[in-house]
């Protein structure tokens, strides 16, 4: 039947509840008798833990327990999502990869400022904090390694026992002979680009509440993006069977990847609750969050881009160093993502990229909206822009010359994606994206504003692998009132799943989206799930929901056919009823459910969708900026996005996703930077000094889109969660470079703070 709900700009079902303050976030979960946990965190970037004296803390009224490394298993945290690379990838790369997971509580050394060392459990958070101050930890400070340079120096101490250097991962990806091709290029742009360390800053910080039952089972509420994987991990660590553990991700106020990581704190809350036989709650504050939730993006690229005299890309070489922080729980995910997205939407005949992940004594880094892609796009698009400039060609023309064209799709890039499958661009019209984005912004340069500021324009394009496997699950059933209940492993932190997945289910079943209830982020009622990261949920969960719903629809029709004595082929499901075509004979879903109950007929289905590989979204972003030459202050005057995320389920939700992503991308381009000093001390651990842009700093973003359905799933879906955040640093850098006076320095890094821009201008 004709699609009705997919594509509609329905207002989100979640919003009324959330806007009225009726959300149920982790801070709203209150269990009678709950205790509060506060962690004693390391004040040193690197120190041996000599002794812990908890006696004064235990003596404080209201303190129930103090938990140290002696009380918990000292093994590293179990695998979570991506730690083990797929066999096909390992076979092709033969990567150097050392497993490097944090322990629950380190027995030997603290390896970054803010690392949790001791857990204090008390009647309330106030007393717990007072008690945490009374825990005496004797430290022997060790040499901090606050930079990659320090960590790689010949005499640097090893952060992890038994290692010969502080390198956690290294591998090379090759296609053709890039070195040779570069030697024959007309122009080689050789530059060093660096992208700063950033924090994801969900507005709601981390938290967990664990409630043990008398029968030995455990309910764990957690502000997480991955309920089922967390249950598996909790089971491994506690010894409790997964069936005895229920993990619930309640309303979550933002995740962005930061909550898609396995944290010792979440597991400790569960263990402590089981140990004490009482509910236990942990809600972190912003300072803890800035110190110990994962950071992201800190990379340096030494890149060589070879172009012919006509501006055709001839070869690309890149040596990438990733500052991975004190641990590397995600293996090669970030460096591989970066490498996989370096060529972008362009034809690159010869390619060689080497990545190294270096351990430093800072908070660990992990995927944050874009997850390695913004860094790739920044380095490549900057180089392309510089190359066009050197050849005296319009950079728009150079891009058009090199873009993979629609008629070349599917386009095999000659390398693998990190799922081990060939990286094949599977659809889209990249030249059209570019043309429209350029039109939107007005491609005139060298203009000055009335107040004397110089104007520049910039552009960048990206592709994004979305909808990664291995799978996502959905269980669809009908309830006695004739409503549809969907349980899925996808977890929402604001992506609008309750609306978007309901639209997909509605189309598949022939009901209205208001008749469908989506429950995500709850391990109950669905055996397996993966969770919401990597722009995958609409693609993978959406496909699973659709498949399960179609199955239940067939079951409905079969039963209805028997009841009405009409062939299934002559029945339709519409508006909550099964109707015989061309007659008035119909049964409501509630009636059919009742009948199914009487006859013992099953009206439910569970489906796990396993995508063959990722499907590719794409986009072009453009911007005009004004630069105050005297102060270096940059203002974004205009910003446009033209993107392609395949078939759009809900345009309002997509718009929100893109704008939110762009805002975070602009933050990385102009404002945010996590700063450590040479002793590994975090210098800006609060939102006073870590500059998250406010609504005043984010310009109006103009959106346009193309819809090239994906060939990889029946609904034609491509992911959209991260796209907005991928291009902005490159766009703004290109725009600022365009605005700077001739002879000014080259933009090689972000953020484009006023002092940095002023310094570039001053270099004339």
């Amino acid at each position, binding site marked *: 039947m004709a699609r009705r709900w997919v594509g509609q700009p329905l207002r989100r079902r979640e919003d009324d509840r959330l806007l009225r303050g009726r959300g149920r976030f982790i801070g709203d979960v209150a269990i009678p008798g709950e205790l509060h946990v506060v962690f004693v965190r390391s004040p040193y970037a690197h120190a041996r833990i000599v002794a812990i004296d908890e006696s004064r803390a235990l003596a404080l009224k209201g303190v129930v327990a103090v938990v140290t490394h002696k009380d918990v298993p000292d093994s590293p945290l179990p695998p979570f999502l991506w730690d083990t690379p797929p066999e096909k990838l390992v076979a092709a790369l033969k990567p150097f990869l050392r497993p490097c997971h944090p322990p629950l509580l380190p027995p030997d050394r603290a390896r970054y400022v803010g690392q949790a060392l001791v857990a204090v459990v008390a009647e309330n958070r106030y007393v717990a904090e007072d008690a945490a101050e009374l825990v005496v930890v004797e430290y022997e400070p060790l040499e901090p390694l606050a930079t990659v340079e320090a960590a790689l120096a010949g005499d640097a101490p090893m952060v992890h026992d038994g290692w010969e250097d502080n390198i956690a991962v290294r591998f090379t990806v090759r296609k053709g002979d890039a070195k040779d091709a570069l030697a024959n290029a007309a122009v080689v742009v050789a530059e060093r680009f660096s992208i700063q360390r950033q924090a994801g800053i969900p507005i709601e910080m981390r938290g967990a509440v664990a409630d043990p039952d008398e029968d030995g089972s455990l309910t764990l509420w957690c502000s997480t993006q991955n309920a089922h994987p967390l249950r598996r991990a909790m089971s491994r660590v506690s010894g409790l069977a997964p069936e005895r553990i229920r993990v619930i991700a309640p309303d979550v106020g933002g995740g962005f990847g930061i909550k898609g990581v396995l944290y010792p704190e979440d597991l400790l809350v569960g263990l402590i609750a089981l140990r004490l036989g009482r509910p236990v709650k942990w809600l972190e504050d912003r300072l803890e969050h800035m110190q110990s939730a994962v950071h992201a993006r800190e990379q340096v690229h030494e890149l060589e881009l070879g172009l012919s005299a006509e501006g055709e890309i001839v070869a690309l070489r890149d040596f990438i160093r990733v500052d991975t922080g004190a641990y590397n729980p995600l293996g090669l995910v970030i460096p591989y993502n970066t490498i996989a997205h370096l060529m972008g939407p362009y034809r690159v005949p010869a390619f060689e990229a080497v990545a190294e992940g270096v351990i430093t004594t800072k908070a660990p880094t992990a995927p944050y909206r874009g997850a390695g892609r913004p860094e790739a796009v920044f380095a490549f698009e900057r180089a392309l822009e510089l190359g066009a400039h050197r050849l005296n060609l319009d950079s728009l023309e150079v891009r058009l010359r090199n873009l993979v064209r629609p008629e070349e799709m599917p386009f095999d890039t000659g390398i693998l994606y990190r799922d081990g499958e060939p990286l094949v661009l599977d659809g889209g019209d990249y030249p059209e994206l570019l043309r429209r984005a350029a039109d939107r912004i007005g491609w005139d340069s060298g203009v000055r504003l009335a107040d004397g500021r110089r104007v520049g324009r910039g552009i960048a394009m990206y592709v994004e692998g979305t909808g990664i496997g291995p799978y996502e699950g959905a269980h669809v059933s009908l309830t006695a009132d004739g409503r549809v209940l969907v349980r899925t492993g996808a977890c929402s932190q604001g992506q609008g799943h309750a609306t978007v997945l309901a639209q997909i289910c509605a189309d598949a079943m022939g009901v209205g989206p208001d008749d469908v209830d989506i429950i995500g982020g709850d391990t109950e009622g669905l055996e397996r799930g993966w969770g919401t990261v990597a722009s995958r949920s609409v693609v993978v969960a959406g496909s699973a929901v659709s498949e399960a719903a179609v199955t239940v629809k067939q079951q409905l029709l079969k039963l209805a056919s028997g009841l009405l004595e009409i062939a299934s082929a002559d029945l339709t499901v519409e508006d909550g009823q099964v109707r015989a075509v061309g007659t008035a004979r119909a049964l409501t879903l509630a009636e059919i459910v009742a009948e199914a109950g009487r006859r013992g007929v099953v009206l439910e289905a569970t489906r796990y969708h396993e995508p063959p590989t990722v499907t590719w979204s794409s986009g072009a972003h453009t911007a005009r900026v004004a630069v105050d030459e005297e*102060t270096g202050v940059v203002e974004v005057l205009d910003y446009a996005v033209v993107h392609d995320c395949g078939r759009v389920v809900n345009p309002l939700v997509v718009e929100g996703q893109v704008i939110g992503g762009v805002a975070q991308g602009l933050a990385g381009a102009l*404002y945010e930077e996590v700063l450590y000093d040479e002793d590994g001390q975090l210098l800006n651990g609060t939102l006073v000094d870590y500059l998250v842009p406010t609504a005043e700093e984010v310009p109006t973003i103009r959106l346009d889109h193309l819809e090239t359905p994906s060939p990889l799933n029946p609904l034609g879906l491509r992911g959209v969660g991260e796209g907005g955040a991928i291009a902005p640093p490159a766009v703004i850098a290109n725009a600022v470079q365009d605005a700077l006076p001739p002879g000014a320095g080259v933009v090689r890094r972000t953020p484009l703070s*006023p002092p940095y821009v002023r310094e570039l201008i001053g270099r004339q």
Partner: protein
Amino acid sequence: MKPPPFEYIAPESIEEALAALREHGDEAKVLAGGQSLMPLLAFRLLRPSVLVDLNRVPGLDELRLDKETLVVGAMARQRAVEMLVGLRERCAMVSEAVELVGHVAIRNRGTVGGSLVHADPAAEWAALVVALDGELELFGPSGSRKMAAAEFLITYFTTALAPDELLTRVQLSLPNGRSGSCFLELCRRHGDFAIVGVGAVVTLGANGEVADGRVVLIGIAERAVRATAVEKALAGERPTEQTIAQAVRELDGEISPGSDIHASESYRRQVAAVLTRRALARAAERAQKAEYASEA
């Protein structure tokens, strides 16, 4: 974080408040708007054993725009000053500075007295009282005394207020004659602390020359600074692009900015010069256009 334990006293008269301060001395902190104090308590950077809350003490929040002065009670909210009818026309610098204090929500609670006693070197109110001959009234066990702003503000987070005293009100002298004023700031985001802030007042004489020029800067030293050398260089000159630029050359010796994660000393010096030039130009332009010219 949560604050460490403290005792809370809410006096209902100034005498009660002073009695509480007398009793607890250094162990007590006064709570006005709480916009600086509460975060410090929440971070456990301050650990007073006693908080003395002034919010129930009447008579401390007067706000009066007179012909020659602006009188502000210590407990007047920033937002009340921002919304004071006639203030922008009378002295734009004050309105422009107050608008830059944090965000509206902060200004709704934050008080002028709280800002002055907290003495952040980047506080807009420090610039205003220093530029406009601010006279502060302090009330203690032996009654009230008056002190000039420059004497009151000593250094980072340090004033001449005794532990048993309260700041009750401040009086600013508004420019007279043909004058214009301006306040400019460079900060990273809307509502942030100033990296550098400049307030300028220009009063013109009969021949269009600068009869009285004031230049004050924040964020460039341990307290707000009057750039008197710049003022002297401009005195008696007609304010043109050239004379202003010439006068601003005297600025560098007047300021001693530090470096922090947001800006180096050298960047602050550059921006101080740029903003001083721009502020003086705008103040002079406004003076030239001034419709309000009271008796000198």
